[in-house]
């Protein structure tokens, strides 16, 4: 299993100061939640960690190797990215779309084998999409497409998951199922990083939290230490109320102003 580390990493957001250089490791079995208001740079951070965007300074290491020493294909066998936005390109079926997750493992002249097909069908089953196998992606609902993106990443068999707001478009039940999917991936030794907007999903499932402020400041640590109401209020510039149900903490928006 693999570890993804940020080393004195400063993400490149135009016209913003360097802020706090990021220095953390996502270990196998951990689920990291990145929290921050709109425009704080969550997506840029995720793309930088995936090697899809160059950092301003510092670097990212995959198992102690910098991205510069790795080929794109090697990275793709370790890291799966679930994007927030997707291009459909030309019409394709659900099964075809899941199968592209096998791309990093195939030589140019290879065709998909029975094993690839089985992996794809298994991924569809785990995201409850089996019945839609032959449908065109363009005919799916937003939530179904989001699950399809998860299925494609599953089919990629990554050791590290980077998912940008994986709960987007999902109803409550499917949000929980998606989070359970990440939990089971983490349990089987994979490392997971999620950009999230839902504090309660983060509180319930994440082992570690990274708070990203709009000015580039950041702090990170174990989930129970990071999820403090006053810190979250400053982060979102929004008063919060905290409550406990069955021994778990929940945050909901409150009225009134924040004293920064």
């Amino acid at each position: 299993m693999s570890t993804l580390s940020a080393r004195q990493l400063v993400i490149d957001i135009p016209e913003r100061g360097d802020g706090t250089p990021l220095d953390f490791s996502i270990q196998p079995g951990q689920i990291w939640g990145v929290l921050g208001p709109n425009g704080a740079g969550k997506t840029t951070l995720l793309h930088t960690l995936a090697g899809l965007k160059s950092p301003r300074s510092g670097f990212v290491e995959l198992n102690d190797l910098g991205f510069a020493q790795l080929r794109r294909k090697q990275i793709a066998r370790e890291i799966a990215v679930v994007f927030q936005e997707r291009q459909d390109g030309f019409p394709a079926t659900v099964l075809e779309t899941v199968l592209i997750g096998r791309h990093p493992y195939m030589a140019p002249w290879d065709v998909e084998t029975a094993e690839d097909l089985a992996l794809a069908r298994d991924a569809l089953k785990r995201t409850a999409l089996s019945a839609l196998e032959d449908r065109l992606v363009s005919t799916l609902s937003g939530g179904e497409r989001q699950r399809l993106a998860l299925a494609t990443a599953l089919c990629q068999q990554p050791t590290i998951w980077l998912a940008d707001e994986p709960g987007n478009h999902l109803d409550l039940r499917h949000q929980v199922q998606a989070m359970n999917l990440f939990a089971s991936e983490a349990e089987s030794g994979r490392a997971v990083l999620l950009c999230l907007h839902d504090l309660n999903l983060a509180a319930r499932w994440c082992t570690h939290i990274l708070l990203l402020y709009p000015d580039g400041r950041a702090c990170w640590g174990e989930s129970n230490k990071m999820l403090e109401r006053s810190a979250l209020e400053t982060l979102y510039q929004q008063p919060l109320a905290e409550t406990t149900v069955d021994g778990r903490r929940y945050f909901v928006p409150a009225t009134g102003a924040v004293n920064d």
Partner: protein
Amino acid sequence: MAAVEALRRRSVPLLLLAAASVICIAVSVSTGSVAISVGELWAVISGGGEPLHRTLILELRLPRSLAAFATGGLLAVAGALMQVLLRNPLADPYVLGLSGGAAVAALLCMLAGMPPAIVSIAAFAGALGSAVLVFGLAHGRGSWTTTRLLLTGVVVSSGWGAVITFMLAVGPTEQLPGMLYWLMGDLAYARSPWPALIILALTSLILLPLGRSLNVLARGPMQAAALGVAVRPLEWSIYGSASLLTASAVTTAGSIGFVGLVVPHMLRLVLGNDQRLILPAAALTGGALLVLADTLARTIIAPEQLPAGVITALLGVPTFLYLLYRSR
């Protein structure tokens, strides 16, 4: 098992299209001022037959048919590539101003009274020159995006269009028909089909293993990179090969429109979107369509000839509209 099945699923349509192409070429070489029957055609192919038929087929009709096949194939493959590269269904081989650049160079040579060989070389240089110009301008100092490339290509094409109209307006009257025929695409002056055929065969062979990467690229550069595709080198090679394919086609037969835009789409409507199937299928279908169009172009109002580009559009437009209307 699945691998064998996938290969079979892909090879059946390709074999059918290959057979259709051979039939189109056979029909094309049998049709003309002197009609040749199937038996006579077979006699010539197997090395016998009357001397007149041998000359007609081997020296006149077959080279022209093969040139038409190669041109159609080149344009259709170039179109399929540009549509994936720009992720835009309206992209065609000429979108980068290739045909305009070729036409300006070719017409200038015609105006100067150069021999046809020089006109061809100028067309090739003009097409590639325009591709480099568009790419350089789209690159600029900013980032290289597909929208920017597409827009630059369209604007440069309009520029070439104005220059062409200017040349047609001031050109001597006796040169006008030749110039117009070149602009509409005409195979009457196609010489040896071999350079175009060889380029078509070579690029098809090189592109086949890239098919799956192209499938992934069609889902956007970020997704492709996340799946292990080296996006920039792939985009560069698509750009380069599409330009080369189009330049060879324009050099062989002038600017024949429509094939490159519509053949890939027709195939996608029927065969789906796997580039591993679409690229070779486009080569065969584009080729067969242009062979057919050229045969009609030289027989409908014989002994007069029509530009083949007119026929490709007249054949292709209704077929395409029908398929589009019928699709889900």
